[in-house]
């Protein structure tokens, strides 16, 4: 029998960083305790893991770090309940458990040679960060065409990964468009909702794939804009976040129709989702 999929790998919290101004999102950096442990956790952008706080429970979070950043895993977590609150209050140096990697990942092989348009909203930018970091790695960058990133938040203080955004802004191999909902003093970037900005940027659908993650309203209104740009359902990739427990297709919780989001997803094309009931 394979490894027991319920047993977490112990990892050490080395950084508990307050990511957003409202303090509701923290980014956690966990360090592998040994090289062997790290080898047992080969992951790809788009996958998630169950993070367990011993004594509280476990919860699934998208992996925000990229496999090109060895030695640690990063998660950005919104404070909503039991496990996420326990994480927020956790002292650096504490041991947590991480179970994974779980789920499928962005289809990096199929994306080779294509232009990639990444659209994110709110704090659902975690696995997108992983994806962007992966693509920007010099040994990968040549495999992909133009990289366009549209990222929106309510206000500048709620954007994640500010240092990286700044770094990406200065590069010529990525087109980054950050936008906020309403004008704020000192903000020189764009203002407007993600769907509107998508319309303005009007990414070409020619030989392109769009990856879109964000709150349901953002997705709902961005879809028609992508369609207007000529994106077909099989050129649009999404990542679902149903409630999960086991993460391995057994506890029966996360299904959309006959697919388990944990085991068969969380990454689906719009074409695949069109075949499934809208229960997500």
């Amino acid at each position: 029998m394979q490894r027991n999929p319920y047993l977490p790998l112990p990892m050490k919290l080395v950084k508990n960083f307050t990511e957003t101004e409202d303090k509701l999102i923290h980014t956690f950096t966990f360090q592998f305790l040994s090289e062997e442990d790290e080898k047992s956790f080969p992951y790809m952008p788009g996958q998630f893991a169950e993070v367990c706080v011993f004594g509280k429970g476990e919860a699934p979070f998208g992996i925000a770090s990229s496999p090109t950043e060895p030695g640690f895993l990063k998660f950005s977590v919104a404070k909503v309940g039991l496990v996420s609150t326990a994480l927020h209050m956790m002292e650096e140096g504490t041991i947590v458990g991480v179970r994974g990697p779980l789920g499928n990942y962005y289809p990096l092989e199929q994306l080779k040679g294509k232009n990639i348009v990444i659209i994110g909203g709110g704090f659902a930018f975690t696995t997108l960060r992983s994806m962007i970091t992966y693509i920007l790695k010099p040994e990968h960058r040549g495999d992909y065409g133009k990289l366009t990133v549209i990222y929106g938040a309510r206000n500048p203080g709620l954007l994640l990964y500010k240092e990286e955004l700044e770094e990406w802004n200065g590069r010529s191999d990525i087109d980054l468009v950050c936008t906020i909902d309403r004008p704020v003093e000192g903000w020189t970037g764009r203002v407007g909702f993600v769907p509107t900005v998508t319309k303005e940027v009007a990414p070409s659908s020619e030989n392109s794939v769009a990856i879109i993650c964000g709150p349901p309203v953002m997705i709902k209104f961005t879809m028609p804009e992508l369609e207007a740009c000529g994106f077909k359902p099989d050129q649009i990739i999404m990542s679902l976040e149903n409630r999960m427990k086991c993460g391995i297709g057994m506890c029966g919780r996360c299904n959309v129709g006959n697919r388990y989001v944990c085991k068969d997803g969380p990454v689906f094309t719009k074409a695949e989702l069109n075949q499934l009931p809208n229960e997500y």
Partner: protein
Amino acid sequence: MIIAKNALPGLLDKLAAEYEVYAPVKQGAYSLYKQICNGAEADFGYVNSKIPPKGILFPQSEKLYSYSVTGEGTSLEECVDTRKKVIFGIRPCDAKSLLLMDNVFNNDKFQDPYYLTRRSNTILVGMACNDPAGTCFCTSMDGGPFDQSGLDLLLTDIGEAYVVEAVSQKGKDLAAALALGAADDSQKAAAAEARESAEVACAVNTVGLKARLDVNFYDPIWEKFHEKCLGCAACTYSCPTCHCFDIVDEAKDCNGCRVRNWDSCMFPLFTLHGSGHNPRTSGKERMRQRIMHKFKYFVDNFNATACVGCGRCIKNCPVNLDVREVLADIRGSEARSDK
């Protein structure tokens, strides 16, 4: 082979020396599968147990591992149960349900060591149903009162004795270890007679059911099934093929264990997101999920219906919601529901 009824308690005692033996035990007005220490506790005057024997392999509450966390690290201790077991007197429908459950706990990507270890260490001694209940509809679900799927041995009650058939190698080995005598011709004839006369009165027509479910997710028909449902989940807890569970921590400070407990798609919290969004907001979506899962999704994934027709959900539902009627309604035909 044959087991005389008066020899059965002794034989169960003998088994109990080597195995954990589970058998039907009377509990007030109904029967349950319980571990027995002595053969006399078993009572085979049962139609079927109120709760299915799935809990022997997939307990209602089970510790997955215990842990202790110190400044220096963590230690985890797996709690995989490796004891050998015999379920004595399991009904054919329940044996079949375990074959269905195997698909879930040994799926295309992951294996559940807790269930699978118990499963491979468990021998299933079946008891054929000479007198199925009015709520049984196994023959409509690809099973039957003498069905041997999943069993190691099958017993047939012929009055004074049980005629025993070996179904699998495991069963043959067990029969050999117990040195069971041979059945004579008249005993074999009596067993054949019992098989002939066993009748499952209720039939559910499933022709075209899957084809309907393939297309009727948004059909208004789903508005009505849940109307009287209380959302109590008695139907799913007592269903031998339902496998949903929750995982929780039971801990004091840094020492504790991770535990899994049966859960149910009939509960509103089951799918509630951390954000407050819930993809299945009302009883309508939850009832649809229960039916769709058993009669469509499971068929899509494993080419088998996740219902064995045991009738427990019908018997245990406090408001008499009858899955046979629901299925008939979906098909647009008349239900036969003899209770």
